[in-house]
């Protein structure tokens, strides 16, 4: 993989990350927030894969597997929270759970 393709790969990762972030910030539906979080995590994973391919190192792959595992755990917890949210507030609007304000 040459340098030029790495710039494209990294650019794609950054773009995905930014899109995911925008989604997290502007969406109020908790399900979409969780999905956007997945996109951000996968953008990070993509960055590791691109870097691993650029320097022909297995570290990038290792990190990607770790990130996948973290993402799976996060999805499980996130869905659990989503269920609790629906159960207690009868809505999945994430702003409804803003009682811990100062």
């Amino acid at each position, binding site marked *: 993989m040459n340098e030029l393709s790495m710039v494209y790969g990294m650019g794609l990762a950054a773009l995905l990350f930014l899109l995911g*972030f925008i989604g*997290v*910030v*502007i969406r*109020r539906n908790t399900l979409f*927030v969780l999905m956007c979080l997945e996109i951000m995590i996968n953008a990070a994973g993509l960055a590791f894969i691109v870097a691993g391919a650029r320097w022909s190192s297995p570290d990038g792959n290792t990190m990607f597997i770790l990130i996948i595992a973290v993402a799976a755990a996060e999805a499980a917890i996130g869905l659990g929270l989503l269920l609790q949210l629906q159960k207690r507030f009868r809505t999945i609007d*994430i*702003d409804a*759970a*803003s*009682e*811990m*304000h*100062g």
Partner: protein
Amino acid sequence: MSLLVFTLIFPLLGAITLSLFPRMSYGAARTIGTASVGLAAFTTALVAIFWSAAGGFPFIQTLWQWIDAGDFQVNFSLYLDGLSLTMLGVITGVGFLIHLFAAWYMVHDLEGKPGMARFFAYMNLFIVAMLLLVLGDNLLLLYLGWEGVGLCSYLLIGYYYETPANAWAAFKAFIITRIGDVFLAIGLFLLYVVFGTLNIQAILHAAPSVLAQGGTLANVAALMVLLGACGKSAQLPLQTWLADAMAGPTPVSALIHAATMVTAGVYLIARTYGLFLMAPAVHELVGIIGVVTLVIAGFAALAQTDIKRAIAYSTMSQIGYMFLALGVGAWQAAIFHLMIHAFFKSLLFLTAGSVIIACHHEQNIFKMGGLRKKLPFDYAMFVIGGAALSALPLVTAGFYSKDAIIWEAVANGHGFLWAFALFGALITSIYTFRLIFVVFHGEAKTEAHAGQGLAHHLPLAVLAVLSTFIGAMIALPLDDVLPHDMAEASHWVELFFEILAALVALAGVAIAAVLFLGSRKTVDTVVESHQGQRAWQLFHGGLGFDTLYDRVFVRPFRATARAHEKRDWIETIVNIVPALTRGANTGLAAGQSGRVRAYAMIMFAGAAVLLALLMFG
């Protein structure tokens, strides 16, 4: 001789017992309270006998070391010499008689209400404090007694504390004497810095070599002691509290505000006379203060309607004579007048108390009148006391003590002070006999029931005997303590001035008789005229010192306090701290919105900033 400490222990035990059992019966409280002081008086007599038998040398009884902090060492020591023995005799002797009278008086004054034990506990405690004051061999112990008598004075003026006016009078006495005490404390600090000790004899001994004659240091130290004495002895400019102090029971007025505590200032100046010899300007001031006070208080006494207030102003005036004596260097005459004054003034106060009880708590002299027939005993006592106060010639003790002062003033070359003192003597006999004529002569205006019993008659009779020339025959052992009175003049000159003073006193009686015996038409016309009204108001209020102090000190202070209550710049600065904290709290609390999306945004912004710093920083 080591019995000396028992003069303190007996009243102290009495005070403790009485405070521990506040609900004891009238009889028990009276017995304990009176007996403790009686034992102290008996001990004093024994001490006096042993002391003079041993040659009359100064005797020091060290009880324990009080303070031991580095170089600062103070012993709890009692010092007995001629001066403290004289004071000891007055305090325990007159004190015992007054306690005995109080045992009669308080039963009629309390009329079954509780408080007898409290009264005698305060009185005994006062005796303890007063004895400490005169027996202390160092200024710190003297100061302990000084504050102790101030406290007891406060407690006893406010004894009937249910009436707010009495509590205010107690406050006033406490605060004004405290101003004097602050000056005395400053004087003590100064003396310790200069002399390195507070032992009175050591200071007196070292004064001529350490202090420069008339130097600033000597003047300031003496002035501080003088102001302290002025506060306690109700002299100008700290005299306003004494008339209001009459709110206390009458035996209190007799013991504390006539015979003993108010003369503590005289004792203090006599005790530290060496200091005043080194500061001639301040020494001169003592006499001037005395003369001004005696004239002002005399005028005020002329216009009082309350029998106790009139006697209170006369006390102020008589202490003015003592200050005059101190100021002209007649040290021994001052102490002699102190003792004689204690006799006749407590006689006058106790008789006034007896009259007040006889007239059912009436204190206004214009509502009494004509009591001569109903209260012949009180009449005789009051005339004897009043005659001594006016210094009627030959038969009264006051003649020998007061005219000695007036004579010393002129003999020591203070013609100006002498003229005022003589004028004061005239006023003294006018206001004294005004009291006698208004209260005991004229038409009867009230019912009166004469006091009965030994506790009523004995103290008055003994004090009456002491107020005559018999009391003047007591020779005080002061020659080794205080300098001899310096007056040197031919016998005939002295005789001339004494006859003059005697004539002035008699003239005062004659003027009082013309003005107040019979219909009192002249006085009424004068007082009812416009100027007369204003003058009467002025004299009645003690020549406006209360108003003056109110205008000069109290009102500006309160106005300043009120003005700065809201906009005080120091407080503005202090308030910045809480304002900052509160502002930061509001800002940070607003950031804590509770919205997850906002937190994510802030986290991202933070990460972006960090990243930017890593890349470009």
